[in-house]
């Protein structure tokens, strides 16, 4: 669907006319990310992260294919082939550092993209499907990243695989059998490494497919916007090309500056030194941590230290960790507020900035810290808020809150004289 005033694709060159009859791919692109896609004119910079996320995915696929040309998926050679890439392959060090830091960049962008969704309630009707697909993408990304981290077969690779697959043994009755099936053995070994390599290669293409669904679903209602007011007239929108291509374009360059600083000047800052030690199944590192993007969920996992009712602590932690993401699936129906944007929801906004954001920050910090006091108690409090936020606070706040008056239209929000709704960034 698109708005009636959207530009229509009109090929002028005979070749393009011919192409449009046979395979209207240029038309598809034009309507998806070209002049044919009308977008609210008031998007702020939080709306840039979707485009950047797409860029990160492409970057990961390209560098990943390159690395797979030189990597050996066998426990005897995996570590050394990684070092071979770093030392002897032409530009191999660049490919590997770009891939490792690219994963981090991807997650930075995705977390910002998701939190944009939380603040502006981008998950609400008519955009529930976009949100649901987005959560699926996030889950796939986590699985892909986890398996990718195992591939260099360093100490953290091995023990990360050991610990994370150990989570599945918490499942009652079938847990141990399931874990052995997952690993293809009793501990991570060659079978594990090989299947992780295979799946790590496959999943990004699955993600790409799901991303296409995400964008498709987006184009049915069109993009949301910082006011949360739906598009009413032609003056509310601008065509994606050139307006948002121009805006996304320069932020891509800015992203490349920051990414370049990470890759070229601090490529190991986000990695763990233990992964430069070859895997040793006989020796556990003093302090096992996953990569930073798993820290909030790792903190939630470790927060459950006592049995509750009939549920043992281990299973409780695993349930909570998966539930922490699964609750996102239900957000469109838990949040019943008629108003989308957090800018017009005074109470929700307070819980967002002074509840959810600090709780996530604490979870990030504690997930990377050793499992000792006071970090465990801190992560218990932060996890408590996390679940309360989504399952209790959001449903209740959305019923009792009195939203601020909304602007009549996007155009009014942008051009209005006493315009407090133009939400930063664009000023």
């Amino acid at each position, binding site marked *: 669907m698109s708005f009636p005033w959207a530009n229509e694709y009109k090929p002028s060159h005979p070749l393009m006319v011919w192409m449009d009859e046979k395979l209207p791919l240029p038309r598809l692109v034009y309507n998806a990310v070209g002049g044919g896609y009308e977008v609210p*004119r008031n998007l702020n910079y939080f709306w840039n992260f979707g485009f950047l996320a797409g860029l990160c995915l492409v970057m990961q696929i390209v560098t990943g294919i390159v690395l797979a040309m030189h990597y050996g998926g066998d426990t005897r050679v995996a570590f050394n082939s990684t070092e071979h890439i*770093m030392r002897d392959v032409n530009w191999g060090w660049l490919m590997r550092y770009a891939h490792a830091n690219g994963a981090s960049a991807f997650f930075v962008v995705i977390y910002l993209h998701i939190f944009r969704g939380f603040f502006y309630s981008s998950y609400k009707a008519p955009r529930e499907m976009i949100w649901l697909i987005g959560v699926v993408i996030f889950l796939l990304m986590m699985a892909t990243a986890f398996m990718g981290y195992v591939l260099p077969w360093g100490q953290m690779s091995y023990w990360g695989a050991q610990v994370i697959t150990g989570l599945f043994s918490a499942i009652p009755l079938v847990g141990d059998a399931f874990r052995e099936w997952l690993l293809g053995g009793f501990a991570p070994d060659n079978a594990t490494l090989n299947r992780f390599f295979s799946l790590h290669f496959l999943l990004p293409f699955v993600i790409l497919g799901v991303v296409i669904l995400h964008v498709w679903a987006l184009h049915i209602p069109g993009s949301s916007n910082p006011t949360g007011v739906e598009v009413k007239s032609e003056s509310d929108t601008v065509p994606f090309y050139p307006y948002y291509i121009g805006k996304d374009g320069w932020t891509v360059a*800015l992203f490349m500056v920051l990414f370049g600083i990470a890759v070229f000047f601090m490529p190991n800052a986000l990695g763990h030194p233990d992964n430069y030690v070859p895997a040793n199944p006989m020796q556990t590192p003093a302090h096992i941590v996953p990569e930073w993007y798993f820290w909030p969920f790792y903190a939630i996992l470790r927060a459950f230290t006592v049995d509750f009712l009939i549920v043992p602590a281990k299973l409780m932690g695993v349930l909570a960790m998966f*539930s922490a993401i699964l609750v996102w699936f239900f957000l469109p129906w838990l949040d019943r507020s008629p108003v989308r944007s957090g800018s017009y929801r005074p109470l929700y906004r307070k819980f967002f900035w002074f509840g959810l954001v600090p709780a996530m920050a604490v979870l990030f910090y504690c997930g990377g810290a050793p499992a000792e006091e006071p970090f465990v108690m801190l992560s218990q409090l932060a996890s408590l808020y996390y679940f309360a936020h989504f399952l209790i606070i959001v449903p209740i706040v959305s019923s009792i809150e009195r939203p601020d008056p909304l602007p009549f239209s996007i155009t009014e929000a942008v051009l209005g004289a006493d315009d407090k709704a133009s939400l930063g960034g664009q000023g």
Partner: protein
Amino acid sequence: MIRIISLAVGAFFTLALLLAFGTGAVNYISEPPAPSAEKVFHEHPKEAKFASDGPFGHFDEAQLQRGFAVYQNVCAACHSISQVAYRDLEKLGYNEAEVKAIAAKATINAKDPLSGEMKDRPGLPADKFPPVVYAGAGHPPDLSLITKARHGGAAYVYSLLTGYTEQPAELIKRFPDAKLKPDSGLHYNPYFANLNIAMTPPLASDDLVTYSDGTKATKDQMAKDVAAFLVWTAEPNLEKRHQVGFVWVLFMLFATVLGYMSYRNIWADKKGH
């Protein structure tokens, strides 16, 4: 309905967490965690400056050659650098003939390409440094990646090599169990993670090597040089990475400015942007 379920699930998790928090807090107050000897006496690496530090970091060839000499004369008896090939030494400033001579001193056990049997032969520049067979107790780690495999990197290696001391009297007073027995084979070193390291002090006296460039081989100098050398073994492409990085970042800054100006142009006719 969904909201009733949501509240119930929310209550389930929050109550479990409250219980866990309460139990933890009670334990914490009734039995505050006792500090361990490692917690109290472990020290962060000393401040040490290396040419390879920072965004302008580069390699000091003379120092790398000195560090290589220390590695060969002191470390190589127990520690391998199996990720490094002899040919890589050309980057330290050795010429082809010198590299060939260094490699030829090593014995490499390799498959003979014609017969297919494993045979000993003199090393070639294309070979990697061979594994080191260590007869004593313990497992001396391979040092190729050591400065990337330890927090603190080169400063850690330098601190560890120069950090051997007697066990402080205060440590023995506070943690009587931590006193090292004479036959334990361990040595006190506050920079080592658990304070007690099996490696005997490798740089116990000055002049363990004779530097060809005339630098005086004090313990401190040797420790610093070998740490610098191990930065190179871990990250031989560091210089190139920094150089390419500058070009990339500066070009992208330029592109950012151009892109921003272009963006302002495009949006010039839309107020509020």
